[in-house]
């Protein structure tokens, strides 16, 4: 049987009022008496459903509304309009039974007690989430092993590195074995090795508990590696929801042809085959990169082989980052 959606969002809106400062001292004095406010539509009519066990990536620029959506799903923010249901609960009610089943992890915020070892926070969360002793031991051991942090549990949090701290934050957030995870920029500020470690961990957690995960990230690598499905949000609106590789089919107009020639070829000659993106000579190697409409790529390639001294030819999909950048820049979807 097909799994029921456990997250449902229907026509969600969330607006904020923002204070606009006028420049200069006079502006400041004016604002003393009257402030100008502007309504910002952080989330503007978004709908989607997510099934159990799915890992979904939220993609969008800063301020697109990713974090706001996660906060509404967690019951932190009251929706301006629309319906939201997570695990059959209305998040805004903040029922303890609901709160014990999910976790929101924010890469830039910490709940660990700064001056104390992380272990103290774990024990506090054990009490808060009413985790039984044996389950606590078991989860803690498993998490500590997965993240390899056994030797730092009794060191003051303030003395840990950012990566170590983030791992401890994860443990604190996962001790109650949540089925639903909202990860907001979990890898921000971490070095590449640490990013990889966290990604592996998230993957393992998803497989082990069949957990449902929504992830926002600046790093496309996070999304590419973890999520089959992606939701793209731009200026509060949902502009794409589907398999990550479908983004390529839908938005990538061109394919990339990388060419290596045995003799020099002029730019003019290349231009009749497609848009020349790169054209250079490195010692005895002549290389070029062409952008060619997707459907014509094969035909153009064979023409090139026939007409020019091609030594090597590659047809590639453009990188997903580039496609998404293009999507955001063009703005019309």
């Amino acid at each position, binding site marked *: 049987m097909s799994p029921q959606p456990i997250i449902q969002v229907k026509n969600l809106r969330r607006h*904020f009022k923002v204070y606009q400062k006028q420049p200069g001292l006079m502006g400041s004095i004016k604002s003393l008496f009257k402030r100008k406010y502007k309504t910002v539509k952080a989330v503007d009519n978004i709908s989607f459903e997510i099934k159990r066990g799915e890992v979904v990536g939220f993609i969008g620029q800063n*301020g697109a509304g990713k*974090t*706001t959506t996660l*906060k509404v799903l*967690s*019951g*932190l*923010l*009251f929706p301006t309009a629309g319906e939201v249901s997570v695990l059959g609960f209305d998040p805004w009610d*903040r029922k*303890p*039974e609901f*709160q*014990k089943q999910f*976790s*929101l992890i*924010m*890469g*830039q*915020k*910490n*709940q660990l*007690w700064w*001056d*104390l070892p992380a272990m*103290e926070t774990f*024990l*506090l*969360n054990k*009490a*808060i*989430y*009413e985790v039984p002793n044996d389950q606590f031991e078991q989860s803690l051991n498993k998490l500590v092993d997965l993240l390899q942090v056994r030797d730092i549990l009794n060191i*003051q949090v303030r003395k840990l590195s950012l990566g170590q701290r983030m791992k401890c934050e994860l443990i604190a957030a996962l001790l109650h074995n949540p089925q639903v995870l909202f990860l*907001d*920029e979990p890898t921000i500020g971490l070095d590449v090795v640490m990013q990889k470690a966290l990604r592996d961990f998230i993957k393992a957690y998803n497989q082990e508990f069949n957990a449902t995960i929504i992830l926002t990230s600046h790093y496309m690598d996070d999304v590419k590696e973890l999520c089959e499905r992606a939701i793209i949000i731009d200026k509060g609106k949902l502009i794409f929801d589907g398999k990550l590789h479908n983004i390529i089919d839908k938005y990538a107009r061109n394919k990339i042809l990388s060419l290596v020639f045995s003799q020099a070829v002029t730019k003019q000659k290349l231009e009749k085959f497609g848009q020349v993106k790169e054209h250079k000579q490195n010692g005895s190697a002549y290389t070029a990169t062409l952008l060619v409409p997707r459907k014509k790529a094969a035909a153009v390639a064979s023409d090139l082989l026939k007409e020019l001294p091609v030594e090597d030819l590659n047809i590639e999909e453009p990188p997903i980052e580039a496609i998404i950048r293009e999507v955001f820049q063009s703005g019309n979807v």
Partner: protein
Amino acid sequence: MKKIKTYFKVWRLNASNTIQELLVNRATHLLFFMGKMIKLSMSLLFLFLIKEQVAQFANYTTDQVIVFFLTYQFIDVLAQVFFRGVYLFRDRIIRGNFDFMLLRPINPLFQALTDHPDINDTIFLIPTTILSIYIASTLNIHITINSLTLYFLLLINAFLIAAALHILVLVAGILTKDTEGFIWMYRDMIQFARFPVTVYLEPLRSILFFIIPVGMMITIPSEVLLNLKPTYSIGVAFAIGLGSIILSLRLWKWSLKKYSSASS
């Protein structure tokens, strides 16, 4: 019942964490503690100097005025012991820790008020209460069993009003991202009650009884204890206690809807 147990356990762990933190920063806390002691001693000294030089303070004897001060001292410190979290709330809002409070299966209001029980003030409360009882016993005042019982009931009522006022500060914190100003406002207002608030001019006097009802928290109980005719009947005091707590809880619920969570 299980819920109460959980809440108590959480409170106890928070307290124990706070003590551990305090030991990390012990120098600062020692200075803080010394400061409080000096402040209390100097205030008492001032009152005893007044007692020597001044026979009558408005409608009260100077001995009675000291009782008002001691009641103020007790209520003020008690509220700090239990509601210290309010003083840190601005930080919680700005750094987003309040988000975590909303995420946990424990009432966020409970967390915001009590997540940092003030150990300094707890330690401070014990000797100062003993000292206060001793000082009261040396004064020339008239206390009966009846008046003492009513006094305790009114102190509980005062604690409720204090809770309500602290909740209002939290509400202001959610709406404006600033609590510092408001909490110090409260501390300043309650400072008026170091002296019986009946000595102040109108409209301040009515404000102190009905708007920020520190008069109901401190002046009325003290008058009752001293077997003086209370400025307003104790029924009014209890009504204000109940009313303020209900109102503050409603405002709290409403303010959560306005919460806009510091963006990352």
